[in-house]
């Protein structure tokens, strides 16, 4: 394959990676930004979304897109409700202490993983894409659904951005993010905002997983990578910055894609990882974070 087509493929793949990253990270960006807690169970919420998509696919008859739409609605609701319960039962009682939250969410991670293993099983299972369209370029073929994921990621990010900037709920969340004590003084029910944010963050992770699972597969350990990558994206982007999250996802996705053209896969992965780390080393506040 010539260099041109190779680059084209690398860029397309990079774009898809960026889309997946931003879908996984957008919820974490909210939670981390507003609540300033490290939710180690974020990846498990993502996994649950994928697993629910698999169950729904088995339950909803008819064409794949119907099950897909059903999962797209159902998974965020179920996972969001679970997250709200975790918030109310555990995190609130810990007063969102950063360190205690890490331990608690590690505990939640174990419980969710075991529940998935017991009720869903250890196998990797595929979920059909809502539509089956593949197109052939002169040099290689490509999945149409992957491009749909890119579009969906753009739509989700746009919706979250509009929600944060144009709605009252978004305003309340941003106010809480800036200073929770001041927000409380202005009569904002901070605990409700936190519960809502935590549920929304988890719901977004689940929705991202429903979109992602047709190009991957559902597996009970699949939450691990989205967790780490989400954290990386959110921090590189700059805490609480949606634009930063998007740009960081693009930087990581595209650099990953392009670097993989020139090196053997493992070496490419090492170099891409170090490159992204260096971004933070020389810009510790992230790409769009406020200077300290």
């Amino acid at each position, binding site marked *: 394959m010539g260099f041109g087509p190779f680059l084209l493929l690398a860029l397309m793949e990079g774009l898809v990676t960026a889309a997946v990253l931003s879908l996984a990270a957008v919820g974490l960006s909210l939670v981390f930004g507003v609540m300033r807690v490290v939710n180690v169970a974020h990846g498990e919420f993502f996994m649950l979304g994928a697993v629910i998509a698999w169950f729904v696919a088995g339950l909803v008859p008819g064409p794949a897109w119907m099950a897909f739409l059903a999962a797209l609605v159902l998974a965020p609701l179920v996972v969001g409700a679970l997250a709200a319960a975790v918030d109310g039962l555990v995190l609130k009682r810990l007063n969102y202490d950063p360190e205690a939250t890490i331990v608690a969410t590690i505990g939640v991670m174990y419980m969710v993983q075991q529940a998935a293993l017991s009720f869903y099983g250890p196998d*990797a299972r595929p979920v059909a894409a809502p539509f089956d369209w593949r197109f052939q370029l002169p040099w*290689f*073929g490509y999945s149409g659904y992957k491009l749909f994921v890119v579009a969906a990621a753009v739509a989700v990010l746009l919706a979250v951005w509009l929600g944060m900037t144009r709605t009252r709920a978004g305003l309340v969340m941003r106010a809480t993010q800036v200073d929770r004590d001041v927000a409380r003084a202005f009569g904002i029910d901070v605990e409700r905002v936190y519960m809502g944010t935590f549920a929304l963050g988890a719901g977004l992770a689940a929705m991202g997983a429903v979109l992602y699972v047709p190009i991957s597969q559902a597996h009970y350990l699949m939450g691990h990578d989205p967790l780490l990558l989400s954290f990386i994206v959110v921090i590189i982007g700059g805490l609480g910055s949606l634009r930063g999250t998007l740009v960081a996802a693009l930087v990581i996705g595209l650099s990953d894609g392009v670097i993989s053209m020139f090196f053997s896969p493992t070496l490419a992965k090492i170099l891409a990882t170090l490159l992204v780390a260096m971004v933070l080393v020389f810009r510790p506040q992230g790409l769009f974070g406020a200077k300290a």
Partner: protein
Amino acid sequence: MTTTSLFTPSRRRVLQGMGAGLATAALPGHVWGQAAPLKIGFQLHRTGIGAAYGRWYERTTTAAAAAINAAGGIAGRQVEILYEDDATDPKRGAEVVEKLAGPSGCDLIMGTLFSHVVMGAAPRAGELKIPYLVCSEGYHVASGALNRWVLQPGITDVRAQISTMAPWVASTLGKKVTMVFPDYAFGHDHRDFFTTAIAAQGGEVIAQIAIPPTETSFTRYFPQIPAETEVLYHVMVGPAVLTFVKELGEFYGTGAKPALFGFIDSLEAVDTASPGLEFLEGSHFWEGHCRAKPADAGEAETAYRAAVGVDDNGASVSDAKDVSTYAHMFSCWETLYFIKQAVEASGYAGPADRQKLVEAMEAVTDLPEGAERPQGPMRFDGKKHQAFGVQNISKMEGGKLVRVHQTTIEEGLYDNDTDYTAMSF
């Protein structure tokens, strides 16, 4: 040493037991209520990355133990299997060996699959001087890296498996091979041994693409597959395998593509008729044990499937979506029968006889096909502590794997310097 004379009666009784359904309940209690049970510790991948295998390893072993018990147990003693989860982790694996050997009071330990767990736990087994029979297919045992207490009697090691594939690949599919494999031990064994083996057939590996194990998407590496590739040799493990195949299909699509040859490890516990796997149609796979029941399958194969609870497609009889790890799990069954054979041959009575037991194991040579070995005949090399059996090559036809070739034991034999019998206990 003759093994058939020891085995014939029990084999018949196994089959009788199976025919009668759960015959265990029907057997009079006093027959096996006298001697203390033989406790076999099973190091199980119940959680972690190996869990899909672990579940079937557990089912197979439980079935084998039930069959043996129904037929009177081992040397008149009932077999009790103690499963202990190692989380597919070498550190926990070592702890599990200690627990099984210590407080659990097991006579011996078996069952480990993932090679890093074997490596991490083997030194402890050696120090605790307890036989440790792995079902891993790794080359770690035969390579001589481990110790006198570690044996692999139930499955052919990957070096032998791979070497037997090369002649067929070179003569049937092509001589210019590109390999795609995970960048860890299992993949490295493939890389090293297949490259050598295909060269011996006048073929050549023209590219080696090692994929880091954390990777979840593969398309961007496919352009590294040289255009002149005749055979794409792929062996991936882990949950991302489905993505790998799906993306490969999308990448090549309707265009020209190399012949595909893979190891079924990629698709263990995965339904070969899954959406996205259509691309594999017409491609070939190594199978240790054919998942879809071959037309010429004998009595032992049928009985084995019935005992474990696997249908003719290799899925659970109770849930057709629950696909087994058929190409590997037979190793648990055969390892347990190997234990039976060695315990009975050595007159093993308790932990004090463990050394005698290992020596009896090392003395085993021929392991004929039968109810004990539904996968086929094997030959055990006491010096290498490794069994060698026949291998299968199957073709994907209509979403189902159909055997097209079977290798002989001799094709897989190789020479190396390993001689565990020269090592002290």
